[in-house]
């Protein structure tokens, strides 16, 4: 919250627009987000909520045009990303911060062996001969549980789970301080997902990496994250540590997300979906973005954006239902 922080990530008041022919898509709206060193933040939201845009903004990789950052600041390890030269930014990518994309099939080059691909990343950021880089690449493969000898194979010779591990090895090759994982296991089967998550947990502890885990799956958040931010229409509407958000759920949208999930313990439990659809990002409502879908919406919700209310030092929610006085009580219940 203070400006001179040394958090791994600090995003303040970030707004990003995509100016398309069919209108201005407001992808991020005054988004705030921070990750302390060594911590893992889960960024949870639905398709179109702005999760991926947030990840890309951190690396300054928003396609422009049509993407434009209209306001806000982004700090990585205290350094202002938006004022950096392209050269400084390049040395930061891969070295300080690396990103894992959702689809391992498209983030690997099909005509290069996997060790060459990893070595290429290493060579960009570290001194040494090509052979050093290859050796390092093989070590990285071993680290993610792939025999180093398989490094001279091509991506199509690997299964989906192994490809994603190669992508992770590549991201970790330069020992980044921050890892942005954009739905890293969505394309994988559950048993493979379990393996990959377990491996990521191990590596994170070993290297003390901070992590931004972008996901739609609250189960994965419970598994691997320390804190969680719920994002809706490009804005964080609830943030806290796991106990805050999972057991003292405050925002009606967060509550709706939990209620939409089939409960594995109680198969008779009725699903309570959130009614309606995400608001059109070219035409966001004047008040709270969630008001049209909210069961608790009051008049004020349609007119005015809700302010932030803190429940404790770690947990805040942006909703008109709450004020300083009633935030401690359980207002809505699951």
């Amino acid at each position, binding site marked *: 919250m203070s400006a001179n922080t040394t958090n791994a990530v600090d995003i303040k008041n970030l707004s990003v627009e*995509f100016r*398309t*022919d*069919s*209108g201005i*898509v407001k*992808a991020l709206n005054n988004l705030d987000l921070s990750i302390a060193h060594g911590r893992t933040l889960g960024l949870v939201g639905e*398709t*179109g909520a*702005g999760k*991926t*845009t947030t990840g890309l903004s951190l690396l300054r990789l928003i396609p422009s045009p049509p993407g434009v950052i209209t306001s806000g600041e982004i700090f990585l390890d205290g350094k202002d990303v938006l004022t950096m030269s392209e050269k400084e930014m390049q040395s930061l990518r891969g070295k300080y911060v690396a990103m894992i994309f959702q689809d391992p099939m498209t983030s690997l080059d099909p005509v290069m062996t996997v060790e060459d691909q990893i070595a290429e990343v290493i060579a960009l950021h570290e001194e040494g001969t090509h052979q050093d880089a290859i050796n390092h690449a093989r070590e990285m493969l071993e680290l993610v549980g792939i025999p180093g000898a398989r490094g001279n194979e091509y991506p199509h010779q690997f299964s989906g789970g192994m490809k994603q591990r190669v992508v992770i090895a590549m991201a970790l090759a330069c020992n980044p301080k921050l890892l942005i994982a954009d739905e890293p296991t969505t394309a994988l089967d559950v048993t493979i997902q379990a393996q990959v998550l377990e491996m990521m947990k191990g590596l994170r502890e070993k290297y003390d990496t901070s992590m931004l885990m972008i996901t739609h799956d609250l189960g994965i958040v419970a598994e691997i994250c320390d804190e969680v931010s719920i994002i809706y229409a490009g804005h964080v509407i609830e943030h806290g540590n796991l106990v805050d958000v999972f057991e003292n759920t405050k925002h009606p949208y967060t509550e709706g997300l939990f209620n939409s999930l089939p409960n594995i313990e109680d198969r008779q439990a009725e699903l309570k979906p959130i009614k309606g*659809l*995400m608001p*059109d*990002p*070219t035409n966001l409502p004047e008040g709270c973005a969630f008001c049209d879908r909210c069961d608790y919406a009051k008049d004020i919700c349609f007119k005015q954006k809700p302010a932030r209310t803190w429940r404790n030092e770690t947990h805040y929610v942006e909703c008109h239902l709450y004020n300083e006085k009633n935030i401690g009580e359980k207002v809505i219940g699951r």
Partner: protein
Amino acid sequence: MSKENTKKSQSQFMDTFKRLCRNKSAVLGLIIVVMLALIAILSPVIYDYDTQIIKTNYSEALQAPSGAHWFGTDEMGRDIFNRVMYGSTTSLSIGLITVIVALCGGLVLGAAAGYYGGKVDMIIMRIMDIFLAVPGTLLAICIVASLGNSIMNLVIAQAVSSIPTFSRVVRGAVITARDAEYVEAARAIGAKDARIIFKDVLPNSLAPIIVQTTLQVASVILSIAGLSFIGLGIPAPRPEWGAMLSASRAYIRDYSYMCLFPGLAIMTTILSLNLLGDGLRDALDPRLR
């Protein structure tokens, strides 16, 4: 991020047209093509074929461009401007008819090959390969030479040599569309093959076919001009750009304007059709959306 839900309601046609309009060279191509089409349609109405197009007038032969004859006159005293204008009717209509014939053939053969695959595909495409192995112009020359020199035969000759190209394009497009889940969905509700091909597969394979059609019109016009140039095209005295070019060959040193204008006409037509075709290719490509 999904821009899907932000898209304003509009038909696919308008969508494509809008994207085409963003491409300057394609718009230029489109404008010229539309103008040419207008000229081609209006020329037979404006000009009297017997008196203004084919009537010889040796007293005015070989005049340079002037106020009276904008493009000059040819060796028989005919106004070159009139003949170039009228020539567009010949070229464009034959080009269009040929391509429509070839397209129909290509659609049937390509759709069958692509949709059924296997042996049907094998047989159709090997036959097409044989046609493709013979240079198109050569094939056309053979057909015209053996059947005789008439517009009808010219259309047949050009259509036959264009069918393989269309079959391949259609086949490729159909194979892509065939594996889509909505085709399976159509089979699940009991649709028959013909319905699936015409209602589901072909409408979704139109983009490359439209592009190919545009480009093929250009190439047919060009080869008709080529055939006319060597005397196997449109029989005289009907004005045709290739034939006019051929006739002006003898006068190229002293009366170079004679070959300049028909040549320019061919060039403009081909260029504009190609610009339009390339523009359409980009506008119809879903990846560029």
